[in-house]
């Protein structure tokens, strides 16, 4: 049974690898010989990748579900006591499975792009196929040759006695070895947020390969008009949505599971996921300039290339082990391969870009510093500045460690190149990036009110005075009720400004139409959004970001915390909250956990508002503790308790860490608004075809 499943899955995996190689070859040959049937064959190869990898993935999932611990990967990430849904998600719970899962998602997009209507973009096709399949092939090489999830455990007899080895194929004289039970999934990953987070993150990663592929195709074919941007507009939006969702789910997971009262620790792994987002977001904005004004062709190419390579870089950081030590990186073949592939794709992309540098010359000129284009550029500048900061923060500890050899070779500079690993913590990131985030929020408020080409202070002033006036209500009220955190007041004013501008934009359009057509305001609002979904969807996203900013401000500027050791029946205080320690129970569960669960009464301003149950789970299999906070969550604030320590057996005294996190719920609410806005903007529409045809005709007219 195991043999059949493994052979089937492995066979499909290897076949996908061969098919991908064939697809690349056929596309190259088809292009060189101008043979359409070869190109068509390459396209079919690309179509085939998804069904083939689906077989492979299905086999692994069956192996996981049926506890076939003879398969090394299965024994590493599952155990008998795990429920079925966790066994399925264990697919992306370890290195080999993650790489296969990555490839599978990539194959979904390969197949989708193969199925699109190519009739008007025939010249792009060979290059899109090549870029997509080369990327897929790279991941397949890693999966097939280095981190194969189908490797099995074998008992081998040798001179030293017996030992268990991991191998794809049966070593001479070996028998299949099946451990009694597996090691189980890392307990930290057993959370709904973590179950959906990796798929979303990976989807965001792989879907960005498509815009990159079209960009490279545009560079190679020299068709450097806005066509590639128009084709990939929706892909980009969807990719951005997945990237954003991946980030938000990761934050939620950290908040619920990591037990340190926050949602974002500027951990290198988090930063690895953030970096592509930091280039994807300005890309979404600056492509609009290229569409509207024909400018920034070079810059958009740079952004899409950066995004693609940052995605590879992020995967490299997480997957190669380089983060724990430079030496771990060299120990695994994955690291150098990734490094080589990033260098190769980046080098080739930059080379192609320089070849087309002149062709990407901007047709129109910028007319004013005071225009929407200029503000968009400022937005780009801030995003890239944050990217540079994060990049330096992530790579600096690796660099100092790696540069140790310089100090060894030249003792005179050994005090500079110490080779010591350093830590770059959250405070540094917050200080360095904080001003840029604030500036971006400010731009979000001003930008929608500026005009393309040229604005004047007068026209901007005329547009902005009403929303600005309204927005000042917020700081005035805050100061009136006694807030003296001036930075906080300023931050809240910024969010109020963006909210007012956004609402005003909707109101202005709908009110004008409803006055003129003598129709209902809300009907007109509905029509307005429906007929320019990209624009108004974009404003909804802005609004979502503002709501999320409220949560960020709440935690970053107004979080309070305390830690107290109290006896049974005693209480501890944090601000307007009191807790009393009622009891604590320790018990073992059926799924091999030891749980210590405290019961704590929560009082707000003296009134009892409920009970919380902060917990510490200890997983016997992996010998890992997990801290699960007790959280009382309202729209205004979260009261978050962690069980830090307790007196064993007697449970007379326990140590709790209390956090008061104002407004943090708006972070999650805002993310829903963001999803909704992106769906409004990205949902496929019928009129798209008409616009495309029109664009095509214009182009045909120009070239013909």
């Amino acid at each position, binding site marked *: 049974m195991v043999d059949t499943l493994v052979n089937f899955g492995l066979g499909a995996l290897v076949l996908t690898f061969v098919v991908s190689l064939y697809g690349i070859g056929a596309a190259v040959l088809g292009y060189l010989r101008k043979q359409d049937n070869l190109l068509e064959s390459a396209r079919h190869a690309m179509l085939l990748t998804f069904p083939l990898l689906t077989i492979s993935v299905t086999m692994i999932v069956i192996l996981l579900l049926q506890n076939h611990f003879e398969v090394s990967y299965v024994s590493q990430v599952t155990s008998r006591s795990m429920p079925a849904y966790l066994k399925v998600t264990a697919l992306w719970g370890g290195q080999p499975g993650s790489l296969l899962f990555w490839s599978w998602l990539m194959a979904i997009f390969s197949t989708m792009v193969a199925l699109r209507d190519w009739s008007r973009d025939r010249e792009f096709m060979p290059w899109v196929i090549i870029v997509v399949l080369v990327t897929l092939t790279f991941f397949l090489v890693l999966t097939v040759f280095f981190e194969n999830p189908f490797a099995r455990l074998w008992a081998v007899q040798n001179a030293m006695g017996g030992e268990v080895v991991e191998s794809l194929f049966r070593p001479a004289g070996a028998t299949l070895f099946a451990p009694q039970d597996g090691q189980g999934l890392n307990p930290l990953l057993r959370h709904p947020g973590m179950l959906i987070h990796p798929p979303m993150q990976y989807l965001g990663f792989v879907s960005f390969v498509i815009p990159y592929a079209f960009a490279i195709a545009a560079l190679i074919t020299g068709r450097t008009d806005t066509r590639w941007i128009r084709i990939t507009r929706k892909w980009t939006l969807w990719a951005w949505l997945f990237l954003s969702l991946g980030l938000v789910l990761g934050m939620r997971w950290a908040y619920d599971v990591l037990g340190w009262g926050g949602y974002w620790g500027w951990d290198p792994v988090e930063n690895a996921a953030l970096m592509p987002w930091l280039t994807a977001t300005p890309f979404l904005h600056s492509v609009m300039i290229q569409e509207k004004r024909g400018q920034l062709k070079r810059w958009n190419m740079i952004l899409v290339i950066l995004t693609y390579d940052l995605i590879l870089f992020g995967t490299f950081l997480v997957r190669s082990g380089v983060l724990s030590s430079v030496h771990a990186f060299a120990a695994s073949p994955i690291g150098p391969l990734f490094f080589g592939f990033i260098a190769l794709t980046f080098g080739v992309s930059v080379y192609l870009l320089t070849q087309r540098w002149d062709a990407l010359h901007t047709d129109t000129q910028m007319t004013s510093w005071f225009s929407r284009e200029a503000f968009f550029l400022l937005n780009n500048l801030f995003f890239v500045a944050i990217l540079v900061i994060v990049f330096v923060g992530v790579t600096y500890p690796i660099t100092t460690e790696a540069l140790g050899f310089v100090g060894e070779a030249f003792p005179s500079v050994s005090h500079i190149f110490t080779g010591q690993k350093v830590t770059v913590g959250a405070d540094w990131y917050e200080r360095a990036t904080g001003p840029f985030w604030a500036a971006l929020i400010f731009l979000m408020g001003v930008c929608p009110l500026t005009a393309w080409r040229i*604005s004047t202070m007068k*026209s901007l002033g005329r547009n902005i005075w009403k929303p600005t006036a309204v927005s000042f209500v917020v700081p005035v009220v805050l100061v009136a009720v006694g807030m003296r955190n001036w930075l906080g007041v300023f931050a809240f004013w910024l969010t109020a400004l963006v909210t007012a501008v956004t609402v005003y934009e909707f109101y202005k359009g709908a009110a004008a139409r409803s006055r003129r057509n003598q129709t209902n305001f809300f009907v007109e609002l509905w029509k307005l959004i429906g007929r320019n979904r990209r624009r108004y969807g974009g404003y909804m996203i802005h609004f979502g970001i503002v709501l999320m900013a409220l949560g960020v401000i709440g935690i970053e500027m107004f979080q309070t915390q305390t830690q107290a050791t109290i006896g049974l029946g005693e209480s501890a205080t944090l601000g307007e909250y009191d807790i009393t320690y009622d009891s604590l129970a320790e018990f073992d569960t059926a799924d091999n956990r030891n749980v210590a669960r405290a019961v704590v009464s929560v009082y707000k301003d003296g009134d009892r508002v409920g009970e919380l149950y902060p917990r510490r789970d200890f997983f016997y299999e992996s010998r890992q503790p997990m801290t699960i906070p007790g959280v009382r969550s309202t729209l205004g604030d979260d009261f978050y308790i962690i069980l830090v320590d307790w007196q064993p057996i007697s449970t007379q005294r326990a140590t709790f860490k209390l956090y008061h996190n104002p407004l943090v719920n708006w972070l999650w609410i805002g993310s829903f608004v963001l999803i909704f806005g992106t769906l409004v903007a990205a949902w496929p529409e019928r009129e798209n075809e008409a616009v495309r045809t029109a664009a095509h005709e214009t182009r045909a007219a120009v070239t013909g």
Partner: protein
Amino acid sequence: MRNLRIWLLALLVVVAVYGAAPPKVVLAQDNGPQPTPSDDEVNAIAREMYCPVCENIPLDVCGTQACAQWREQIREKLAEGWTEDQIKDYFVQLYGDRVLSEPPRRGLNWVIYIVPGLAFVVGAYVLYRGIKTWTAPVVDEPESEEMADTGAEEKDEYISKLEEELKKRG
């Protein structure tokens, strides 16, 4: 052109003010009899430290036994009258610079303290050069296609632009 400079300047001031005052966690007090020094005093130091084993988890929130022992050591040192800097130095002597949440400001480490400002300045310069070379007085281009420039007196124009925009898409 001058307008934008004023705006940029204003923005820089905002950035500077914001950057100069990093938010700090407020510690609440008054929880009845606590060990001396209190957990909060210990955590105030621990939150700026990392143990070499638990990567990327600040010492004040790390749940492992080893980290709990480090916190107890901090408590003992505090009780003996050590200052925050002395305690940090003690751990640096034993385990290296990596126990600090930020690299000490010396040698190569200056890189990460200079980069954020430098990133902005270089970016702003590139942007300035870029826009300056692109900007040329082009007067005879068609009207702006978006409808941002509207005042009460231009309602009709606004409406017609809005309609035009919507028609183009529909």
